[in-house]
């Protein structure tokens, strides 16, 4: 049977404070995440924009969702989702998804109070940058990750390979999922620990690096094993938050693609008319608008449900948003390149950056088919 109960109602409208937050983030990104700067970082060796990251940290944005007792602002995920929407518009290369969402949510859910107190203030300040290493070398999420943990007295020894770790090369700490004698464990491993070898993958979307991480006899203290709660459930929570953050980022990217493409269709003249006056173009843009608005709704709803802690509804809202926004973002960026025409196929134009971000995020943390299967389970179909 399918779910028939009415979903919880959450308001979409932004509060005055939230509007100010959006304005603040936009202002910063307008100056700091220009096309030139994004390209400089994506082609450089730093792996992320340290200048922008520091600025975001100084504004308190890296600690938005971290509880106050651990040095954060204790805001809800709704606030953070607004930041993701803006980052998505600009493709700003910063490790907010990897550190503040995937890493910090895992620590929040699985860590002991002591561990949270040790790790999260650094995350909130932006000085600690976490990455979540939970996939096997082929990038699959299975019950058996690519890393094994063996007990050795008071310590653990990790061996194996974790694949497709977002911001894995540059993170200060790796939240590593490993199979131990009692099942899945999460370890917080400093990136410079002996035996850790990190190699950037050649990725489709250069604005979001991913690394392959080889663990060769890596010794970790038991104190660095997250011991506050069940690791499987914690990982699930972190991934659910990650999925919602990506959907918001995708909604932002979709809107930006529509905005720039529409502006071009107004300005570009062929056959003595602006190409946006041709129905072939106008109608495609109208279809993009329809899809973009619904993608926003799905993403906003998921973010607010996550913020409200409505776990049952989140099991519907999160996979719905991730699957829908992924499809729409990819379509929109594809239409974008087509409408820009020849210039849209060039490296110098930004259309391909969004197209690549769209495809990459569609496949990140589960493709649409995977999420639709989760949705089906949640609604009983």
């Amino acid at each position, binding site marked *: 049977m399918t779910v028939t109960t009415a979903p919880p109602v959450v308001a*979409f409208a932004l509060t005055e404070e939230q509007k100010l937050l959006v304005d603040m983030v936009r202002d910063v990104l307008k100056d700091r995440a220009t096309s030139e700067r994004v390209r400089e970082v994506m082609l450089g060796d730093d792996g992320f924009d340290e200048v922008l990251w520091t600025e975001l940290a100084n504004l308190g944005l890296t600690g938005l969702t971290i509880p106050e007792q651990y040095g954060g602002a204790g805001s809800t995920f709704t606030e953070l989702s607004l930041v993701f929407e803006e980052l998505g518009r600009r493709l700003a290369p910063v490790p907010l998804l990897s550190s503040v969402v995937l890493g910090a949510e895992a620590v929040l859910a699985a860590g002991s109070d002591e561990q949270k107190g040790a790790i999260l203030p650094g995350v909130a300040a932006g000085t600690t940058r976490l990455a979540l290493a939970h996939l096997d070398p082929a990038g699959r999420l299975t019950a058996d990750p690519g890393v094994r943990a063996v007990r050795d007295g008071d310590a653990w020894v990790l061996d194996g390979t974790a694949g497709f770790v977002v911001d894995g090369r540059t993170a200060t700490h790796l939240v590593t999922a490993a199979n131990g004698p009692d099942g899945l464990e999460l370890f917080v491993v400093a990136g410079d620990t002996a035996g850790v070898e990190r190699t950037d993958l050649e990725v489709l979307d250069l604005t979001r690096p991913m690394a392959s991480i080889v663990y060769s006899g890596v010794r970790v203290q038991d104190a660095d094993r997250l011991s506050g709660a069940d690791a499987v459930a914690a990982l699930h929570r972190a991934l659910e938050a990650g999925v919602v953050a990506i959907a918001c980022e995708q909604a932002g990217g979709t809107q930006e693609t529509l905005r720039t493409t529409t502006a071009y269709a107004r300005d570009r003249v062929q056959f003595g008319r602006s190409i946006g006056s041709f129905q072939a173009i106008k109608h495609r843009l*109208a279809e993009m608008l329809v899809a973009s*608005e619904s993608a926003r709704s799905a993403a906003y709803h998921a973010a607010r449900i996550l913020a409200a802690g409505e776990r049952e509804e989140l099991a519907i809202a999160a996979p719905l948003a991730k699957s829908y926004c992924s499809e729409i973002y990819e379509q929109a960026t594809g239409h974008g390149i087509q409408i820009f025409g020849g210039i849209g196929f060039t490296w110098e134009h930004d259309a391909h950056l969004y197209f690549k971000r769209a495809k990459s995020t569609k496949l990140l943390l589960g493709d649409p088919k995977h999420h639709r299967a989760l949705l089906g389970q949640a609604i009983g179909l």
Partner: protein
Amino acid sequence: MATDERKLVDEQIEALFASHPPADTPEREFWGAQFDHGLAWVQHAEGFGGLGVSPRWQGEVDRRINEAGGSTRNRYLNVLGIGMGAGTIMAHGTDEHQQRFLRPMFACEEIWCQLFSEPGAGSDLAALATSAKQEGDTWIVNGQKVWTTLGHLAKWGLLVTRTDPDLPKHAGLTYFIVDMEADGVDVRPLYQITGEAEFNEVYFTDTPIPDDLRVGEVGQGWAVAMTTLMNERVAIGGSVSPRGSGSISLAVEAWEKLHGQDGDPVQRDQLLSYWAEAEAMRLTTLRAKEAAKQGTPGPEGSTAKLHWADLNKAITSFTMDLMGPEGMTYPGGYEFTRPDQTSNRGTSAHKAFLRSRANSIEGGTSEIMKNILGERVLGLPGEPRVDKNIPWREVPRS
């Protein structure tokens, strides 16, 4: 201010319920009394079915009536009157029009229809050809209208005519209220692909209309018609359906009945894809409603019609695919029926499949909707126009 309004509305509801218990009063009598208490359309003036308060109280009024066992189905039974005619008459009608027509309209004592589209004027409504020629205090109407919902039940029609063929097309139009029982009015059912006739064709042959049933000035028909169409948008976009309702519920039903958990994984994925899209669209209407209520409407309010039409067609077609061989049947057959409500409400998967084809045609085709979104929301330039500033008479027509 808001508290005063609430008090006023509450008082009228209590007075209405005291004199006319909603569950025990015959429907038409109740609706008449509802009108007299200013609870028909609260935003309008006192004495004309309103209280002069914010329209947001109407939802509260309707909710309380339904809770008390009363009916608000007059809004569907007389959808063209209450949904579109009322707003037009209040904006452009004379005091006499308002006194004469609004109460019987709201009470469903008189059903209304809309006479806009013609065989030669669909998307291009302003090209319409039905003529009205003045003879003293009377106008003589000749022509043909189509897609006239409820025309066979209507007492009154909202009619747009051409009164001056020598002016450019928008300028030569005049708007009337026409008595559907007058001489020369011939209402014929329009047999649709579903086997039903929700709609009609209406022929006018030397039909007389007294000048005092003209709405607005001669030549101002386009502006009045736009008011009617704006009210249509509001009437359609007023409510948000529950999650999983509408055509997706038919798809889910077909899936569970014919496949269940053993269904084809490709079809399951497709079903979930449609479910997700239907829910995203539903959330958009919720978001639009919230934004409109706060006075900050954005693009989310303009996309619903287009999205719904195209998605509804896709889902109902997919539902037929899910049913396999049963999708080749048409239960109940095509025997001619003439429903007293539009058949968008409550219907079989087979009929929904056929009915949905009209969704992207009625109330603005999807092509026209895309032009509107492109031009008014996205700010793209309009189409080149060959019929601008030339007499309607000289514009090529098919």
